């Protein structure tokens, strides 16, 4: 017993010393180019299409990291000057807002590409559009033979009884409610800018509320559809396609009234690797590189001319394929920057009641 205790004491002292040693090893702060994406399959495709070939072509080393969009982290970096990320994938509203608030570097487009080579909206002050994603709705076509075709029919719980999956957040949900209520696409944001229009959207949502199951992560709708928790769901198009392909499912994608938006590469303000970062961004704006990515994942390309490299089976599944954008509504970033705070707050209060 005595021995055991002494041993224990010695062990803990040794462990303490070991910890002290490990802990004081200085971390390498001269950094390689650090690129941060959403992780998962998108980032795996980034790696194949952009990261690895870039390293091969330029010899510039890349460190990968992933995040879940916590803008707090980037704001913290800029506030404290301890910049640990260089290129970060962000969504459109965060890009615009971060740009206005000085969280991202202004891009020097002369070092990237001619803006004319990119689709509309991809060349922004602080961001280079890397992919276009659509929010559609989906159901299991093996279960529902003659499914709904519009958002208005999505609301029809008599004809298609069962729960509906929707993304938990005011953005897109309110637009969809108005579309379902018969507001034409071009007027959605006009209507939503008025108090009456917002009330109208919430009233429409009230109708469906008892049937709504809310989701947050992009993979959830497919899981819920497969598990039978919902019969139809708002979903991101690329996820539906991926599941259909990998799991041999038959989930329908309804493009009518789809909402689309863009993800951007941005450079964190104060990054020590701006030049390398710009080189990387320029590299990823090349159609031949994008083709690799969009043959893997069903998002829409941003470099004009990528379409001709896309496999003909894959092509109709992409948001930028012919016809899909004609029926689509572009998420209005400026509207959400101005009204996001109050609408999100009202949405949170509404959903929690």
């Amino acid at each position, binding site marked *: 017993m005595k021995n055991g205790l002494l041993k224990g004491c010695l062990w803990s002292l040794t462990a303490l010393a070991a910890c002290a040693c490990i802990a004081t090893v200085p971390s390498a702060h001269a950094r390689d180019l650090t690129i941060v994406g959403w992780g998962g399959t998108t980032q795996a495709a980034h790696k194949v299409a952009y990261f690895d070939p870039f390293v091969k072509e330029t010899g510039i080393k890349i460190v990968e990291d992933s995040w879940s969009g916590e803008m707090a982290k980037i704001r913290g970096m800029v506030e404290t000057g301890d910049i640990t990320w260089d290129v970060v994938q962000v969504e459109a509203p965060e890009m615009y807002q971060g740009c*206005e*608030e000085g969280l991202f570097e202004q891009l020097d487009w002369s070092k990237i590409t001619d803006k004319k080579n990119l689709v509309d909206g991809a060349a922004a002050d602080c961001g280079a559009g890397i992919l276009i994603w659509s929010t559609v709705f989906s159901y299991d076509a093996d279960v529902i033979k003659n499914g709904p075709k519009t958002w208005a029919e999505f609301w029809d719980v008599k004809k298609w009884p069962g729960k509906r999956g929707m993304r938990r957040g005011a953005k897109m949900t309110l637009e969809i409610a108005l579309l379902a209520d018969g507001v034409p696409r071009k007027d959605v944001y006009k209507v939503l800018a008025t108090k009456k229009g917002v009330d109208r959207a919430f009233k429409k949502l009230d109708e469906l509320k008892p049937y709504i199951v809310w989701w947050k992560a992009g993979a959830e709708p497919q899981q819920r559809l497969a*598990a039978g928790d919902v019969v139809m769901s708002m979903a991101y198009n690329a996820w539906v396609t991926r599941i259909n392909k990998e799991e041999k499912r038959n989930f329908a994608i309804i493009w009518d009234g789809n909402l689309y938006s863009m993800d951007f590469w941005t450079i964190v303000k104060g990054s020590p690797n701006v030049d390398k970062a710009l080189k990387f961004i320029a590299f990823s704006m090349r159609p031949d590189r994008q083709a690799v990515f969009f043959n893997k994942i069903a998002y829409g390309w941003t470099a004009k001319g990528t379409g001709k490299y896309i496999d003909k089976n894959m092509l109709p599944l992409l948001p930028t394929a012919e016809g899909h954008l004609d029926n689509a509504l572009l998420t209005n970033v400026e509207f959400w920057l101005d009204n996001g705070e109050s609408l999100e707050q009202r949405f949170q209060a509404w959903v929690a009641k």
Partner: protein
Amino acid sequence: MALQDVADKSLHDKLRRAERRKKIEAVSLIGPLLLLMVIFYFIPIGMMLYRSIDNSQMREILPETAKALAHWNGQGLPDESAYAAVVADMKVAYPARTLAGAGRRLNFDKVGFYSLLLKTGRKLKKIGGPPYKEKLIEIDSKWGDPKYWTVMKRGLKNITLIYLLRAVDLRYDDTNSIVGVPEEQAIYKSIIQRTVYISLSVTILCLLIGYPLAYFMATSSASVRNLLMIGLLLVFWTSLLVRTLSWILVLQDKGVVNSFLLSLGIISHPLPLVFNRIGVYVAMTHVLLPFMVLPLYSVMAGIPSYYVRAARSLGATPIAAFFKVYTPMTLPGIGAGCLMVFIQALGYYITPALVGGPKDQMVSYFVAFFVNERVNWSMASALGVVLLLMTGSFYLIFGKRVNITNMKLG
């Protein structure tokens, strides 16, 4: 007589010395931890919580406006000097990209300020020379609305209470008096109540389930006990995320429980067991149960069985012996267990976020929401302050009741 005095004095001295030595010992034992905590926790947390009232950055962004509005009596519209000050500040702040930050803070108090400031900032290049009053009102009529100026003046003080007020569903109205927020935005009071309610329920569930388990472990043979302990630790060492996920798999509509009940024909439709309050109770109790069982067990293991046997042999019924003799001895364990479970439950958000519905989210969820999604750290800190006051007061009341730290010597 004299000898007695001397003896008394030396005894007194000795006692005092012993007392002092004890104190030094205690300080040197607590000291290292306290030092670590002060430097690496209390200072950062203090700085963070101060953000809930700190508004000093506004004066850095709009210094001239602050000066000009200091003289304004708040009646009607301010004079030309205030408009000139706004233009002067914006000419600096817009290119420096600090204006948006100011806009966001003012927008929290009054919706519309963000777009007002940025719109004005964008058009500043073409504004020309003074006087500015008419020109600003022409850019946006809000500049001619005294309500916005009231908010501006309030928003340029070094300390602000709007975030703390909002955390309890209050706000300033246009005349600077404190009123409740409109009903469709009132949310936090009910969330605070809900947080306490869920945490208390989970604590009680943990105690009801954990006490018998701990008792059984403490009173059974070594091999049974170790088997149970291994089971408990296996659960405990499985990642929280995985445990929460596994409850979804068990409780969902096509989950194990529903499939089982459906196949037996007990139910004809799947029961809603997850993404609602039931799911939250089941999963949170499961996640927090080890925090109840282990302290209970460690206290129970130290209670010799002869106490209860003595009570029995003196004629107590088994129930009386258990509740009058055994249970009181386990109070320190109950106290430690309940405290750990309750306080942790108050701060939980990953589990309810995954297995609960929107009506089951607690204060921490909204803290995370404001930290990560809205990047409004002032509001996050304000909610943090509220949560901290809640847990702190519960701890002080509850901790005293069960005598958890009031340890006496000897």
